[in-house]
């Protein structure tokens, strides 16, 4: 135990000894506002905090809503660590839909390669979701591969995710996959980098065994309201899937970088 502590202290000293331009508007974090995430971690030494309110209008009138919070930190160059939590009403029903209420999700996102003239930026992400919330059962692990390529007037993103759930009931799928593709661009002829429009489409496993895949489409924007503060909003719809799928999901929130 003592040697483990020494290794841990050494690691922290090494990180602290390292030196502590930034891309803020384009830093696409998951659910801020859409599912798509870019392959670039937050800049080294940047701290970002976000909060939002999400309302899901579901088929069958069993709507739900609630706040979400997240914190990101550029721990070392190319590595972002973060934590996120979301609460929703009807936690039991949402737990069956694969939506946690109050679970703590921590993640690390590491940029494997930067974008060059011939290659997109590539990142790997590992996340662990702890069952700290209501009606939660087990610890889940998520792995993701992210790619981002910039073109003259827009950027394209692809995210591939795999999740393994720690505890499931008989009717629930324990392994889930998701593929998301999206683009973002700065609107306006003057090219001011104050607003970013984002659109994505996602295909994901149905949480219920035997259920058809869920296809969703989303549209959102991020708008700078302060030097390092952004307002974001998004709207999305699940086009296929369960009978009580979200016909419309609205999200509005704020992100601040420090």
């Amino acid at each position: 135990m003592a040697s483990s502590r020494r290794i841990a202290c050494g690691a922290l000293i090494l990180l602290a000894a390292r030196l502590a331009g930034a891309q803020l508007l384009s830093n696409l974090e998951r659910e801020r506002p859409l599912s798509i995430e870019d392959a670039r971690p937050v800049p080294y030494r940047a701290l970002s905090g976000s909060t939002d309110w999400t309302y899901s209008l579901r088929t069958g009138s069993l709507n739900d809503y609630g706040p979400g919070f997240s914190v990101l930190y550029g721990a070392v160059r190319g590595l972002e660590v973060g934590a996120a939590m979301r609460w929703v009403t009807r936690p039991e029903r949402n737990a069956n839909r694969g939506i946690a209420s109050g679970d703590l999700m921590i993640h690390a996102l590491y940029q494997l390669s930067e974008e060059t003239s011939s290659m997109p930026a590539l990142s790997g992400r590992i996340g662990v979701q702890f069952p700290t919330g209501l009606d939660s059962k087990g610890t889940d692990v998520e792995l993701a591969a992210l790619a981002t390529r910039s073109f003259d007037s827009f950027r394209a993103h692809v995210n591939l995710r795999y999740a393994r759930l720690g505890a499931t009931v008989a009717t629930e799928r324990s392994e889930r996959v998701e593929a998301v593709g999206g683009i973002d661009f700065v609107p306006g002829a003057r090219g001011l980098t104050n607003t970013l429009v984002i659109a994505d489409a996602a295909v994901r496993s149905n949480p219920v065994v035997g259920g058809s895949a869920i296809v969703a489409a989303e549209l959102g924007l991020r708008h700078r309201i302060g030097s390092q503060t952004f307002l974001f909003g998004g709207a999305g719809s699940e086009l296929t899937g369960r009978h009580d799928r979200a016909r419309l999901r609205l999200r509005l929130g704020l992100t601040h970088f420090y």
Partner: protein
Amino acid sequence: MKRAVAGLAVFFLAFGALSLDRADEPFPPKGRYNHSAHRFFPDLEARLNAVRYGRWRAFEIAWTSGINRRLDSQFSSYLLSLLATPPRFSPEADRVAPRFAREASPLFRALRWGQVLEQQLIDVLASPDSSPALSSRRLARSLVLYRRERWALVEPPTPASGEGVLAAAPVSARILSAGTRLFASAAEDLAASDFGQQRWKVRTTVAEFDRSYAADRPPQDSTYSSTAPTIVQRYPDYAEHLDRLARFRLEVYAALVSGGETDAERRERDSRVAAVARRYGLSAKGIHGQ
């Protein structure tokens, strides 16, 4: 528990080792003074933002199309429209100049890290609690952090001329030169003793800039050494670095005059910008074709 602690340590050591050679520049140095120009001198900051947008846009256009009289008129119109309604916030460089960022990464990062250094000077001096002693300490820290990065410029062994740019795009060069002079003049104004004086001097400088950038007259010397004597006297190292940055910017523009529309032009451009990068102590790795 023991395994978890050891696993966590190995995880961070591995990522720490992997990131030792990483190129990304850090978030700008933190301090209470940050964004002071935006808060207390918004009219000045808006014009500085227009100049920043103009510089990045010029690099993006020049990287592919080169610098010539035909583009000069188009680009100068863009600059004038920006200055007519200057932007409130500074640009995100990789969205304004995406191709330049991808294909000339060392130059892009050195210029962006230099922009942070330039911004820090204005913000430190514009801070409401600034005094010569406090500003000196803050700027010394900012300079130390700047120099630690691999994107900090070193003094080249021999001086070079950027005269070719002035001849190839006289209108754009004149406006951008007036913009560079605005940075130095504003820093000199902000070095004044109190907020009242700062406010009055900055207003005069902004008004002079608004009159001058569109006027058809030869570019004036825009270096800190000629425009900002107080800055040079109080913070000589800082002024020297900013003048070096301005010379570097001009040399990069000069290296892009021919553009990169054909293979031969691209090769020539790449070797020229790589030579500029090496002169200023940067690696040429990451420049397209190098």
